[in-house]
């Protein structure tokens, strides 16, 4: 408990306020992120409502096995992240470090899986180009969304993994105490990346299954 003082940063008067502040700041950033993906989602919704059939045809070509495995991986990582956060708040250092480690590993597993999936997609020329195999033309639109959405999500996840690893290192070397507000921010962000995937999954993988 002695290291709580080291967690307090300028200009906050006390740690409780600081934690609330970081959490608030993080949530406001997420509201911003929601609108960022919102621009993408509204475009998807407009085009899908006018190209029902094309999106169904195109959606049937998404790799549902990889997509589903990845969904399970991310949901699990959210669970491990929550455990890590609770452990950090309770100042249980060892558990915090272990579960942070698992979370980062799951994140990496997601990216590996995603990479394999991309390889399959490219093998089938599903990246819009003159060799694109599907028709009507709006199927290319679906795949445009596929690459942009999963790509942006992967970038967000990579950033999340980097944050988790940095936090892990700082905790491990006792640069900052686990009880500070850092964990709070990292956890909220990680869950957000998971939330995005929860929305993308049905849009990209479940279209055209029936």
């Amino acid at each position, binding site marked *: 408990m002695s290291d709580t003082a080291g967690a307090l940063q300028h200009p906050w008067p006390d740690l409780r306020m600081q934690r609330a502040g970081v959490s608030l700041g993080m949530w406001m950033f997420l509201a911003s992120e929601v609108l960022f993906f919102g*621009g993408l989602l*509204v475009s998807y919704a407009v085009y899908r409502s006018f190209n029902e059939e094309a999106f169904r045809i195109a959606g049937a070509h998404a790799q549902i096995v990889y997509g589903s495995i990845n969904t399970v991986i991310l949901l699990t990582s959210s669970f491990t992240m929550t455990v890590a956060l609770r452990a950090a708040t309770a100042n249980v250092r060892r558990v915090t470090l272990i579960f942070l480690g698992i979370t980062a590993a799951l994140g990496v597993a997601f990216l590996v899986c995603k990479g394999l999936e991309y390889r399959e997609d490219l093998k089938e020329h599903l990246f819009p180009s003159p060799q694109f195999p599907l028709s009507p033309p709006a199927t290319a639109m679906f795949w*445009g969304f596929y690459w942009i959405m999963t790509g942006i999500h992967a970038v967000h996840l990579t950033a999340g993994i980097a944050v988790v690893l940095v936090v892990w290192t700082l905790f491990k070397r006792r640069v900052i105490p686990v009880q500070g507000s850092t964990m709070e921010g990292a956890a909220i962000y990680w869950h957000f990346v998971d939330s995005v995937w929860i929305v993308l999954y049905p849009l990209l993988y479940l279209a055209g299954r029936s």
Partner: protein
Amino acid sequence: MTDAALPFVPPLDVRRGSYLDEGHTILSWLTTTDHKRIAILYALSITVFFLIGGVAIGLVRLELISPTGLFLTSDEYNRLFTIHGIIMVWFFLVPSIPATMGNFLVPMMIGAPDVAFPRLNLLSWYLYVGGAVFTVYVLLSGGVDTGWTFYPPFSSEYSHSNVIPAAIGVFIVGFSSIATGVNFLATIHMLRAPGMTWFRLPLFVWSMYTVSVVMVLATPVLAMSLLLIVAERLFGLPIFDPSAGGDPVLFQHLFWFYSHPAVYIMILPAMGVVSEVFACFARRRVFGYGFMVFAMLMIAVVGFMVWGHHMFVAGQSPLANLIFSFLSFIVAVPSAIKVFNWTATLYRGHIGFEAPMIYALGFLGLFTIGGLTGLFLASVPIDIATTDTYFVVAHFHTIMVGGTVSAFMAGIHYWWPKVTGKLYNEFWAQLAAITMFLGFNLTFLPQFIMGWLGMPRRYHYYPDVFQIWHVLSSGGAVILAAAYLMPLVYLTWSLFCGQDAGNNPWRSTGLEWQTPSPPPKTNFLRPPRVDADPYDYHDFGRTEETGGEARARPQGEA
């Protein structure tokens, strides 16, 4: 004006112990997390970009003296007005008041030692610089010719210029405003001094609060729309490609979802600044404080619902035109209320005619004209006739340049003694303020007229019947340019040769003035406590000669 320091502010030697003394090396500035120093970094950077954007439009106005051009090719012309738009919007106007005065003053006005996340604040400046690097690269490598609006399919398929780096530059600088917005919101929510309740916040802080909401929620949509353009241009992902069923009008929806609220990002802070200036120089409480706050909140929220009035001729459905027209009329109501309230603030005041007040009055006049012509453009039939003509150009310049830049200047002059501890030359400042107002009107009134007559915007060559108006406008631009350069000279001069300002030369009751000027690193010598409403000038007014009551006292002394 003599030093009218309030009784409890220790008469410090101005220079010693101020935030300016915290380090004199360039590195100390580049690594600072002090909100006041970051404000100065921003002020210097946006000044540089204001000058670049100004040179670009100077060349354009020179070229337009002749209907057949003087020295530019059409491509060069198109690149110049595009770079003018990109730089002035994203590298000057959007960060202008929030990132400089907002950064400097928000913590001081609420009695906080710094913003909530000082390192994020520094990061936001570096993001700005990152975006700036791309933009300068665009400039040096031949420019971009899409107009600042980046409409596809021109930007995604047909333009042969540097669309991608330009879009990336804007994308990056967008995150700088998101960071600033998040920071201000957290600061205003969490770090108010004891006694600083929500309805004791100065209107400038309210304006920063509302503008932050807009920045945080609108900017990401711009980022996404630009990202989609880059994806289409770079990788051929057909999001707006009409031949794959894409709709270029969808891009316009996304773009204006940001870019209309962006107008409020530019004007809300200006409203905050002039509220402070009017109160101080009329020595009067701002008339209808509650309504002023409510009006700003209304503008911030309803401002998100009017973007479609940029698209009345774009191929939007007639019903959508009707809805957006209605909402645009509604959003004009709070702006009108504000104009009336500022005017009424003068009633029964003790009005002074110092330079900041002249700039603020210039704002009021131009904002009124700009706002009223906004009603024209909210009316669908008139908008159809005048959109994409100089009428629109004149309208939004009247708001964004006439309004915002006048208010920016008012703020610079009002808080100059606070920031630097020096007084500028009042005569030159008044002269510059009046010149700016006259120059502005001479530049843009002809543009209103020729726009209504039918002169389209973004035209390199134009029918010679419009030449007289273009010549007048270019003449006005020369005066305007002179008026913009004058402050640069006399303000710089005052840094070295100016009179010491004392702590509170305007005898303002604002909390930011109840501390030495320039302020110490921690902003206040002792943590402040607030026990009165803002703009408590009334007693002050009556006892003009004896000095007034302060609204805040250091804790423990009250």
